[in-house]
């Protein structure tokens, strides 16, 4: 997996709805670092993710700049930003096979996709699962597929939207380790949004609490 040595810079971000300011943040996330953002519901955590990923509802007013790989990506469309997302649910496309899901995320230029898919599956202990129907996989297996789909898509930064909240206790711990390991290993700057203090602890990076 391709490593990147660029940070994700959030420069004087301010998101407002009407006259009410929801989020104000000004920070730099280094490669391999996971910044955790916590806060109560409605504090604007998801809004912040939406802004960075490029899905912000036009009703919101956003200021500030987002820098990634030395580029200002603030005005770029979502698909051109190089920002990957991990959701609460694995969201494996139900009409594609496991390999189809992985291939769907891989950049076009990548060669010998099949070999890389096989390798990635092997790395997470799911070797030979390529032709499976995602609906037949367990929750933990689906979560792992979702993770390697994200990594195979070669993002420059990663956003994590409470990715462990739907997993049971045991699995949650395993997945956290797997995810943070991989992100660290890939040298990706990551931003984690969560309710769970354990998430923040395991992430090991800086913590910002929104009011």
């Amino acid at each position, binding site marked *: 997996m391709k490593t990147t040595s660029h940070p994700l810079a959030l420069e004087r971000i301010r998101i407002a709805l009407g006259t009410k300011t929801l989020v104000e943040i000004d920070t730099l996330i280094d490669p391999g670092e996971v910044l955790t953002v916590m806060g109560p519901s409605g504090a604007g955590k998801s809004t912040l993710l939406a802004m960075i990923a490029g899905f912000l509802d036009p009703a919101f007013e956003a200021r500030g700049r987002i820098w990634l790989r030395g580029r200002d990506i603030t005005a770029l469309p979502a*698909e051109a930003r190089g920002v990957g997302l991990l959701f609460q649910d694995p*969201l494996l496309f139900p009409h594609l096979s496991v390999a189809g899901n992985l291939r769907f*995320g891989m950049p076009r230029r990548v060669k010998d996709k099949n070999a890389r898919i096989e390798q990635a599956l092997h790395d997470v202990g799911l070797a030979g699962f390529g032709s499976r129907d995602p609906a037949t996989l367990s929750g933990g297996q689906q979560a792992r597929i979702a993770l390697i*789909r994200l990594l195979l898509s070669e993002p420059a930064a990663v956003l994590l939207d409470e990715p462990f909240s739907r997993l049971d206790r045991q699995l949650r711990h395993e997945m956290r380790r797997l995810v943070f390991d991989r992100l660290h290993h890939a040298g990706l700057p990551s931003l984690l949004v969560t309710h769970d203090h354990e998430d923040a602890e395991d992430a090991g990076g800086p913590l910002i609490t929104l009011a």
Partner: protein
Amino acid sequence: MLLRLTPVVVLVLLVVPILAGVAMALLPAFGYLPALGGESFSLAPWRELLAQPGLARSVGISLASGLITTALSLAVVLLFLAVAADTRLDRWLRRLVSPLLALPHAAAAFGLAFLIAPSGLLARLFSPGLTGWEQPPDWLILQDPWGLSLMLGLVIKELPFLLLMSLAALPQLDAPRRVALARSLGYHPTTAWLKGVAPALYPLIRLPVYAVIAFASSVVDVAMILGPTLPPTLAVSVLEWFHDPDLAKRFLAAAGAVLQLGVTLAALLIWWGLECLTRRLGRRWVENGRRRGGERWLRLTGRGFLIITTLTAGLGLIGLALYSVAGFWRFPDALPTTLTPRHWQTALPALGGPVATTLVIATSATLLAMLLTLAALEHEQRRGRRTATLALLYLPLIVPQIAFLFGLMVLLESLDIRARLPLVILTHLLFVLPYVFLSMAESYRHFDPRWTRLALTLGHSPNAAFWRVRLPMLLAPILTAAAVGMAVSIGQYLPTLLLGGGRIATVTTEAVSLASGGNRRIIGVWALVQAILPLLGFILAMGLPRLLWSHRRGMQGAP
């Protein structure tokens, strides 16, 4: 970008022809039609219209059938949904909605007529055994002067439509949670649904309800088969005046068409008034704290009515099928004395052309409608909010056909546009598009936006996300909407006849012209043909996704 133009295209395609058609009906309604010697404006057509015997009654019946049909259908739908549980019977009833919707109006009306006529299937089943009838009783059941058989026939078709629309809208209300909450407060489940879900559901199906009012108050084909005759409903009277050999009646007919528009609008206004009243009274009822009452009765009516409707339609189809193979069939005999394939043999060689034309028109109109619908909905998704102008999509459902089609025909003639097949397809599109949109919109709008976001963050463009994610995942509702569109197109009579210059022969124009011969056996054959085509569409729509996604469990229960 092309997508951004979609709402404009939709409006031009739908609104312009209708307004132009209405305008061209207004001119002769006020005496102006030079081809027939009407060189100046006058109120003479209106004076003649008001002098028509039985006009008040025609108007009354049209109004009543519009309002009562709608009220009854809506009540049954709400009651059924209130009592419906996840039982086999209810699942089965829900699944029957689509085929019932596919049944063309005329075929359903003929089926009902063959069933409930004094010499019909029901009377035959119980005669002479139970009734002692050796001859059919001289009872005025069909085409009764109060329009009851007409309303029954309309309910058979409108009930499934409203049910389908409600089922499509329900998921966004999270009904189970609302009911659970009310139950925890001590409400009986049925009362909980009626007080907690129904008031929120109604606003979501309001436009389809208005479409039903407009349709039922201006329908022509069903009213000709089942409606009263002395006088007939206003829409049928208007058609008769248009068809009168006395060409001076064209002015009268135009005035009648404008009056029909007024009657339909009046029906809508009355309904709206009742709506306001119900909202006021209903709120008091919702808040009165009564937690149960009449559940048994409600359950019986809710399910009972739906079962009766379904059975009636089914028996009607059986009646059509029996007639289509009947030899001689004397009255009290429940079954024909002899069976013969002759009626089918005569019809089959003549079927090919009309079936092919029907399919070409229905497929083209549906594809166009689907394209526009998807483009409009996708545009809406990318823009992030609903396009208000799309409410105008309902215009073709609200303005009675008879009020603008004749005018449209004259207009196109004078523009020297005589591309008949394209014109017929475009006119079908007027009616197909709203239904396709209605059927698609809820699924599309409630498609989890995270799928598209996911595709974008994986580096795909919005277009790729549409083609590779949204489209395949929404295949089932898209095909269902397409089947609805095909069914609507297949059932069109007046637009095909008028815009096709009489030269476009579809199964429906064939069926109607043959029906004028009154031969029940031939009617049976053609009504069945007319019913089978859309039914095949629905079977395909339901079967294809299952076949395509047979190895994808996650797509089996797709939206």
